[in-house]
Structure formats: structure tokens, C-alpha cells
């Protein structure tokens, strides 16, 4: 599904964000990307949804060389990728329902499609009851669920999560990760960048460890630290 081959990223400032990273992630896999701040986790995710292009190396998504994609085709790549952020990025003047529906609106969906897909997505994240609430009326965990519902509403095969639990307390974080794990069991590939040791150690999924831009470890059922 996602394939990185000798990927390096050097920012214009000269900072080497990724250094010769090769990685393969199969369809339906759940994979943690761990490492301290500045280790290149976000950069790696940004390469996949073409927010960045590699300085050298290849990034292949679903058989397509992402860096070769013309700018006009990038939106169609992103329709196959759901993205979840640490800071939720919900629109404050829209209800939960509208926030999720917004992702369909901008893809040119019909009203009927919207009314079919939004409730399914909200049920999936367990927020069917809160559809009419505004983001500020929700807890952090609930806001993150809305963000996940929005990322999934279009049925993408891949979900990228950039520190999705960074702003949440440990219990809520665990709930969110369980939800993501459940989503991956339905066939969605989930890639989660995190530095939450507790979660990684408890879930025991594949762990890819970056240190200052270099891939130092790739364990199929790993823990946060080298065991």
C-alpha cells in the first residue's frame, strides 16, 4: 500500500529530516511510527499525502509514485487518505454533523450521499448522539473522534494520524487508539505517529522507530523502546 525506498528529505534550512528511509506497509496494517520530537515522524507522513516531496528516493502509494504526481492530481491522491491531527482542526462554527459533511461537500457529493455517509461515520466513532453539538461543547476525546469521522467519511483505504493523542489524557488516548485499532481491523491501513510510550507498549503492534531522521528499528509486535 505504502512503499518508501531510500527516502531522504533535506529542508531548505539544511536540516536533514529523513535519511535514507526504506519502509513497506501492507494493506490493512496498523503501524506506529515512534520517535522523539523532531525525529521525522511528521515529515514521513507528509511525504505520503504529498505535503512534501522527498529530496531523493521514491514514495509509492497504491502503486503510484507520489512525487511524480502532477499538482492537479494531488487532490485525488488525498481522497484516498484520511488524515487525523493532534489539534483536531475542526471548524468552530459548524456542528459535528456539518464538520463531517464538509469533507463530502468539497468533493462535490450530493445531498443524498451526504445523508447516507455522515451518520455511518459518526456511528463508527460512537458520536451518533452528538451530531448537533458544536466542537466547543465536546471533550477533547470527542473532538478527536469527530476528526476521525471526518477523515473516514469518504471511505479512504489509508488513515494517517499525526500524534492523535498528543492533546489527550491517558484514558482518553487509549480509547482513541482502540478505535483506530478497530478501524484497522475493518481493512483500513492505519499509520500513527506518536511518542506515547504507554499506548505503544500496550497495543503491541508494528513499531517503526525513527531517530533524527534515520530508521533504527522495525518490529512487527514491538514496544516503544528497544526490548
Amino acid at each position, binding site marked *: 500500500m505504502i512503499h518508501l525506498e531510500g527516502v531522504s528529505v533535506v529542508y531548505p534550512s539544511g536540516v536533514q529530516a529523513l535519511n535514507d528511509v526504506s519502509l513497506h506497509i501492507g494493506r490493512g496494517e496498523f503501524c506506529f511510527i515512534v520517535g522523539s520530537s523532531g525525529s521525522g515522524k511528521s515529515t514521513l507522513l507528509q511525504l505520503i499525502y504529498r505535503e512534501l516531496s522527498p529530496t531523493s528516493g521514491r514514495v509509492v502509494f497504491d502503486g503510484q509514485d507520489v512525487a511524480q504526481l502532477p*499538482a492537479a492530481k494531488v487532490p485525488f491522491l488525498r481522497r484516498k487518505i484520511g488524515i487525523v491531527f493532534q489539534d483536531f482542526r475542526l*471548524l468552530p462554527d459548524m456542528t459535528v454533523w456539518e464538520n463531517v459533511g464538509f*469533507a463530502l*461537500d*468539497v*468533493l*462535490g457529493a*450530493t445531498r443524498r450521499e451526504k445523508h447516507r455517509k455522515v451518520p455511518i461515520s459518526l456511528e463508527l466513532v460512537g458520536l451518533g448522539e452528538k451530531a448537533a453539538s458544536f466542537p466547543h461543547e465536546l471533550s477533547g476525546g470527542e473532538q478527536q473522534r469527530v476528526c476521525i469521522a471526518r477523515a473516514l467519511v469518504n471511505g479512504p483505504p489509508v488513515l494517517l494520524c499525526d500524534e492523535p493523542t498528543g492533546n489527550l489524557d491517558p484514558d482518553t488516548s487509549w480509547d482513541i487508539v482502540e478505535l483506530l485499532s478497530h478501524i484497522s481491523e475493518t481493512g483500513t491501513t492505519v499509520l500513527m505517529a506518536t511518542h506515547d510510550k504507554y499506548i505503544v507498549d500496550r497495543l503491541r503492534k508494528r513499531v517503526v522507530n525513527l531517530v533524527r531522521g534515520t530508521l533504527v528499528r522495525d518490529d512487527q509486535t514491538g514496544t516503544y523502546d528497544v526490548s
Partner: protein
Amino acid sequence: MSLNTFEFLASQASSAIRRNPMVTIAAITNVAVALAILGAFALVAINLHHMAALEAQSAVITCELDEGADPADVEAALLLDMRVKGTKFVTRDQALENLAKKWDFDLNVLKAMGNPLPDTILVYVSDPEEIGAVADAAGKVEGIGKAWYPEQITEKILTVARGVKISGLVVGAILILATLTVISTTIRLTIYARRREIRIMQLVGATRWFIRLPFLLEGLFQGVMGGLVAAIGVMTGYIYLEAYAEQNLQFVSLYTTTDFLVLFGAGVLLTGAVFGAVGSLAGIRQYLRTV
């Protein structure tokens, strides 16, 4: 495009206008003032040209034929000049008749006095601005003794018209620049106010044009509204001026036909729309470069 999509784009564009009504009004006012001034310049220039054309119609070049010259040959020679629209041969007898008619003389008396007039060829030019040059050229054609035209009036009107056109272009360029800047700045404000939405749109895979369309619509709205205000203002003023001129300035006849006014109004409106589109696209290009 589904109905839902159309509603979505329209609501995006209109929410920006509702969110910043004063900014929108300022932009519309700017477009309206600029277009009104440009429109006024255009009207003055059009009218001066109209007057010059009227003047030029009556001010044909009169070419006096040498005795014994063949009028057909001379006419053919004159028609070789591309600037000549047409010629008309007038015999000295006809010329005398015309003269008698014009001044209400007794034709028989004039004839008895002996006809002093030469045979002439009247030359009509397509562009009144060329009349002087054509007359000079006609004077050199073999068989023509003298070529003259009631000059100066046409020339003077055309000189003024040229001045109006040039100053109109200068003022117009400045106004256009100012208007485009104002529109692109209001679009920039909207883009800034909506940066979160734009970011999400980009991330969930909205196409570039889908993201840009609401801003384009907003700019178009400002341009068209400004054009509408300008068209109504200038046309109302023009109609009043025309009525006033008719009553008080007999020698000035303003160019007014319904067709012309409709065309002029449509032109102002269209110019407004173009301003809106170009201004917003400039704003989009400048501030949404990554979209």
C-alpha cells in the same frame, strides 16, 4: 455539478460577503467610482468623435478639375487611395444649381452672369482624422487644380478627442490598478478569514478550482455590483445632460440612441465583471499559491 455542490459554493461566497459587509461595500464603491470615471471619459470621447464624424460628413474635400481633364480618369486615380470612401463628380452646371439653391439666387440670373465655377469632384474619406492628408494627396493628382476642405473645425474637434482619449487612458490605467488592488485585497481578507477551511479542503482532496471558485464568485459579485452602480449613475447623468444640452446648447448634439445606451450599460457591466474576475484571480494567485 450536483445541486448540493452549487449550494455549497454559493454559500461559501455569500458568507464572505455577509461576514465583511463593509469591506464588500468599499470594494463595490471603488469599482463603481472607477468605472463611472472611465465611463464618463469614454462618453466624452465617443461624443467628440461623433461630432467630428458629423462635421467630416459635411466637410468633404472639393477637388477642382483642370479644364479638359477627364473626370473619369481623375476619379479612378483618386479611388486608388485606400483612405477614400467615395467620390462624386459634380459638373459646373450642377455646382451652379446647388449654389443657387443654397443661397436662394435666381438660377437664370446666375447663368446669364456666366458660370465662374469649375467642374469638381467631391471626395469622401472613411476616417475624418485623415482628411488633411487625403486632401494633400488629392491636390497632387493629375488633372486637379486645387483640393480644399472646410478644415479646422474637424481638426480641432479631433485634437480635443485625442487629448481626452490620452488622458482617459492615463487616468484609466491608474484607476484600473487601484481597483484591482482593492478587489484582490478584499479577496485576501476572505482567504485569511477562511484559512482553516481552505486547509481542510486541501487535506481532504478538494480540487484547486473547487477551492478557488468561491473567491472568484466573490470578486465577480463585487465587480458586477460596482459595474451596475456605475452604469446606472453614468447613464442617468448622461440622459439628464442630453436633455439639458438639447434645451440650452443648440450647437451640441449628444449621441443618444437606445441601442447605444444599452450597449454602453452592458459594456460598463461587463468591464466590472472582468475587473472582479481579474482582481480576485490576482488575489488568489498571490495568497493561495500553494493551493
